[in-house]
């Protein structure tokens, strides 16, 4: 659990998950922000009004998933790197997971990397589809990972494999 080991529980995650119907429609954000802390850039960044106005700066984001178009602008603005965009419409076998990433070197599009879960374990191979790292993003890149559909709720990080390392 988050308070003792930094890992959210299944119940924590269930409360933040977009509905299966919404997930089936296309890209949408999942805000894995579970603690009331004084922070609100996500709400100010969302151009769709999908992250509802805060009553208090300590509020955790409440997302209207129907308003979210999955643009992902919020991903690199979240100081906690806690926002992810999921796209189950990517293909019949794969889903896209868009993650914030602040390590160098950046993976390259087309590269195969380890898909890493919230506990830091490599759980599958992932294919890097796109890397965005513009000046405005100020060193927080957003990596688009194609992962097996069953892994889209698991993968939240990626790791470039070391030479000779085999993954999953």
């Amino acid at each position, binding site marked *: 659990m988050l308070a003792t080991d*930094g890992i959210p529980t299944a119940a924590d995650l269930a409360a933040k998950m977009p509905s299966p119907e919404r997930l089936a429609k296309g890209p949408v954000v999942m805000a894995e922000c579970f603690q009331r802390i*004084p922070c609100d*850039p996500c709400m100010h960044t969302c151009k769709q009004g999908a992250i509802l106005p805060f009553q208090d*700066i*300590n509020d955790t984001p409440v997302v209207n998933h129907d308003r979210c178009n999955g643009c992902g602008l919020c991903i690199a603005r979240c*100081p*906690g790197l806690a926002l992810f965009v999921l796209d189950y419409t990517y293909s019949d076998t794969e889903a896209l997971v868009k993650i914030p990433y602040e390590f160098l070197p950046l993976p390259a599009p087309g590269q195969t990397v380890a898909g*890493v879960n919230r506990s830091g374990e490599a759980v599958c191979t992932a294919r890097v589809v796109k890397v965005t790292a513009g000046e405005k993003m100020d060193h927080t890149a957003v990596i688009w990972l194609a992962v097996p559909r069953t892994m889209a709720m698991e993968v939240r990080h990626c790791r470039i494999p070391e030479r000779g390392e085999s993954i999953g």
Partner: protein
Amino acid sequence: MPQNIRFVEIAVAGGGPAGLCAALEAAAAGARVVLIDRNEKPGGQLVKQTHRFFGSRAHHASERGVNIAREIAGAAAAHPNIEVMSAATVFGFYEDGVLGVEQAGRIFYLKPSRVIVATGAAEKSLAFPNNDLPGIYGAGAVQTMVNVYGVLPCRRVLMVGAGNIGVIVSYQLLQAGVAVAAIVEAAPRIGAYWVHAAKVRRAGVPIYTGHTVKRAYGERELAGAIIWQLDENGQPVPGTEKDFAVDTICLSVGLSPLVELLAQAGCRLVYAPQLGGHVPVRNAELETSMPGVYVAGDAAGVEEASAAMVEGALAGLHAARGLGYVQPDFESRRAALQQQLHSLRSGPAGEKIRAGLAQVLAG
């Protein structure tokens, strides 16, 4: 020996987030400010904070600390009312309100009409066998070496303390290519914001809450550390030992406010553990028990840099007003700053701060 004493309007001791914002606010009101900072470049701890800040737009939320430092230190350097003295140390606060300053081996004296003390805080240490082995550092020291000077002092680290500093420095060490074997925290819960904990956790760093260092080992330098579990009474449990081969231990076990100048000035100090130790009694305007002496930032109580910036601005606003420099929108500015500070502290993360402040706020 006769000494020249220079009379100044406002002296700010410390050029971190609180001191810089105090100087900028007082200067905006029209006061002339001398900002004295002991480092080569002002910015305080912000210069090594490569992570994005929390808070709201008014507190530079989502900006990296190092960029905030550049922005506000640049604004101070460019302001016609602010004189920045870098690599200068205030070493004494005399009974007649004179400050002794050392800069590049030269000693001189200032007699300010108002003083804002924004000296920050120092890292605490931890007692355990062999804690004097080379390779055992304060986490902030390692963060300075890595993020400011580009020096990598370690390959594999054990971080002690899962507060924001411990967890953030762990993340930044990972970014620098250092392996972080684990984060050890004596408390039963992680003190850092959970989003920080989650990002080091998914980067592969285990966090052991309810554990502490049993001992460090090594011949001429650190070779490793043994940790063990603590029971609900905080007593170590034999048989739960884990051994980590590491070349570095980073200690991130809290900060102590640097209040020596305030003590010399005669300000009344009280012990408020929630704020990190001895801190000055002050009113809502940040004026201490000594008229004309203000405090802001970690020296007033250890909390986040976003709060330090707002507190500095409030101290600067009031110190300037005390000299007759009243901004035309003084009341609305004050209300806005107080509201910002209130909101930063209003949530569960601010509970400890609120409890500490209840002991030190007067008037």
